[in-house]
């Protein structure tokens, strides 16, 4: 099952290496991992999407992340109300009439063409992973020349339907 974990980390050198190294050593299957600045200077936010089969392994994952000295907070937000987005750049073969056709396909996805050349065009799409997947499937027949995805970034919505449990507080038992 796909789990979405966010981690707030101190922006020290080697922190990404420490975390990916630990995930690798403990045999977690990373689907995507993103890291970037947060609202506080010196603090970064990571979004990790992993494929974990059982609850025990998931618990291990959050505990091992929490154990890292540079990690300040870990949350499993899979079952929360969240906003999750990914950006993809897709370079598709297309000239002449095909361009208009492709434009018609991408319009409902609110994707945009950000680069056009003689034989191809580059489409930018943002959204949930499923949406990005769907657009890629639709564009495949036209011939995708290049594809780059950022991986997911996510956090909790401003309002939660129910109480949010933080992994940190569960740990201090």
């Amino acid at each position: 099952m796909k789990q979405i974990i966010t981690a707030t980390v101190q922006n020290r050198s080697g922190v990404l290496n420490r975390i990916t190294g630990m995930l690798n050593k403990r045999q977690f299957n990373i689907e995507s991992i993103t890291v970037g600045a947060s609202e506080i200077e010196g603090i970064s936010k990571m979004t990790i999407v992993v494929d974990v089969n059982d609850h025990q392994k998931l618990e291990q994952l959050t505990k091992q992340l929490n154990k890292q000295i540079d990690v300040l907070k870990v949350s499993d937000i899979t079952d929360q109300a969240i906003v999750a987005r990914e950006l993809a750049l897709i370079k598709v073969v297309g000239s002449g009439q095909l361009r208009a056709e492709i434009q018609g396909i991408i319009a409902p996805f609110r994707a945009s063409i950000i680069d056009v050349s003689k034989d191809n065009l580059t489409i930018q799409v943002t959204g949930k992973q499923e949406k990005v997947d769907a657009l890629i499937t639709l564009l495949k027949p036209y011939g995708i020349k290049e594809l780059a995805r950022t991986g997911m970034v996510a956090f909790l919505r401003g309002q939660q339907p129910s109480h949010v449990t933080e992994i940190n507080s569960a740990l201090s038992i």
Partner: protein
Amino acid sequence: MKVKLESEMRAVQNVVTGADLLIQSLIDEDVEVIFGYPGGAVLPIYDALYRQKHSFQHILTRHEQGAIHAAEGYARTTGKPGVVFATSGPGVTNIITGIADAMMDSLPIIAFTGQVTKTVIGTDAFQEADVMGITTPITKYNYQVKELSDLPRVVKEAFHIATTGRPGPVVIDIPKDVTQELSVGEYDCSFSLPGYQPTIRPNPLQITKLADSIEQAQRPVIVAGAGVLFAEATDELKELVETYKLPVTTTLLGLGSFPGTHPLSLGMAGMHGNYVANMAIYKSDLLINIGARFDDRLTGNLHHFAPKAKVAHIDIDPAEIGKNVKTEIPIVADAKKALQALLQKRIQTPKHDKWCETLAHNKQEYPFWYDHPEEYISPQGLIEKIHSVTNGEAIITTDVGQHQMWAAQYYTLDSPNKWVTSGGLGTMGFGFPAAIGAQLGNPEELVVSIVGDGGFQMTCQELSVIHEKNLPVKVIILNNEALGMVRQWQEKFFEKRYSESVFATNPDFVKLAESYGVKGVRATKEEDVLATLEAIFSYDGPVVADFRVCQQENVYPMIAPGKGAHEMLGVKR
């Protein structure tokens, strides 16, 4: 004008290098001894060591691996952090085994490693190694100090991280130009680690749950691990055990956390543990793990591990709880604090007289056993005799293999911090240098290093150190001219195909010792054992003793790999 000149003079005198700052930081941390080996990238540090007055001694080992294992032996027996210096490149890679070993066995180590100058890092410079990359997975934390102003703070942080919570190794990598850099003035040493706040006090709710479970238990058993030793909780453990008559088994690393001769002690559990200890775990209905990590050498096949037990686990590292064994009562805390909280509860002693009787019967009926061959020295008998000659009071360091298991089985310990062995990583070559560290940390104690002929040859160059410092370490080699444990597994599980496990030649260990200026003795016959031991232990100085033991001896009892505790082999003769 004159005044100004004076103030300038003083400024010049106060100028110190980064290396001087480092030495000062170590003095401030009350370091007593540093184990190390110089080299290009640490030349400024060694120069400061030479120039500057300092309160610690530096032990020059003959290989960096010797330095780090000595630091581990020091840390294990004193509870203080072991400090190591190594140069860049090969200096660092030579201490990797020891760092990994300290990580597995939770030993507080601070390793200072030299690095090439900042400007050439990343260019494959001479003696450059990616220390941060190599040590990240095997350290509790690591630093590369790029600014001199960070150095004093980093040292303080490192000592804090290494010695608190679950102890572990910390590496501080310092580029050569940082230690050479001149600096004046004071640096801010204050630090904050918001992501590192170990939970020390137990959750009262979980303590109540454990207290209730003890009351209701009919077949309770405690597994005591090294966490009891790190938390200095042996007195609390003993009080708990005696108050509620709870039988205790220990892990290999937990030996000494509870008196081995105590009537409620069941001895060591695990692959080569006691029948009574393993069966107690197997049949228990309440298993209380205090500071052990349910390693596979303890549990055997997890499907057969304590199948009927409710499991309570006290550990300072939350990640260990529920990692291998499903745990009903998780208690994240320092073992001492958890036991104190438990002792404050008024609990009824469980009704488990029958269980205690069964265990006492098993203990009586199925002790460790061995044959007494006439033509060879019995290795197990040898350990028993060492125990009796030293009154069971020596600090024992071991290597890894058969001799380690026999030492664990037959050198019954009654007091803590006297057992130094490589448990998690199983590092051959550990025992002898660890004895050097143990002796330096405990100058008044008798230190005996029980090693095999294989492991001893991995680090025997450190004989130079015990000669040079006149450290009265007694090295006892159980020489079976083979890699005994490998040979045993090949005999049992590979149809006696003894592939590369029997040595065609061995050095003359007596002459080897003598060439280093160390007394060497040898015994080849059973009847000479006692007299030789008396000679060793009455000699005031280091000794290497070559005991020719029976090569065919195997360690029993045994839980074969993949089997459960109920399938022990060699329980009875």
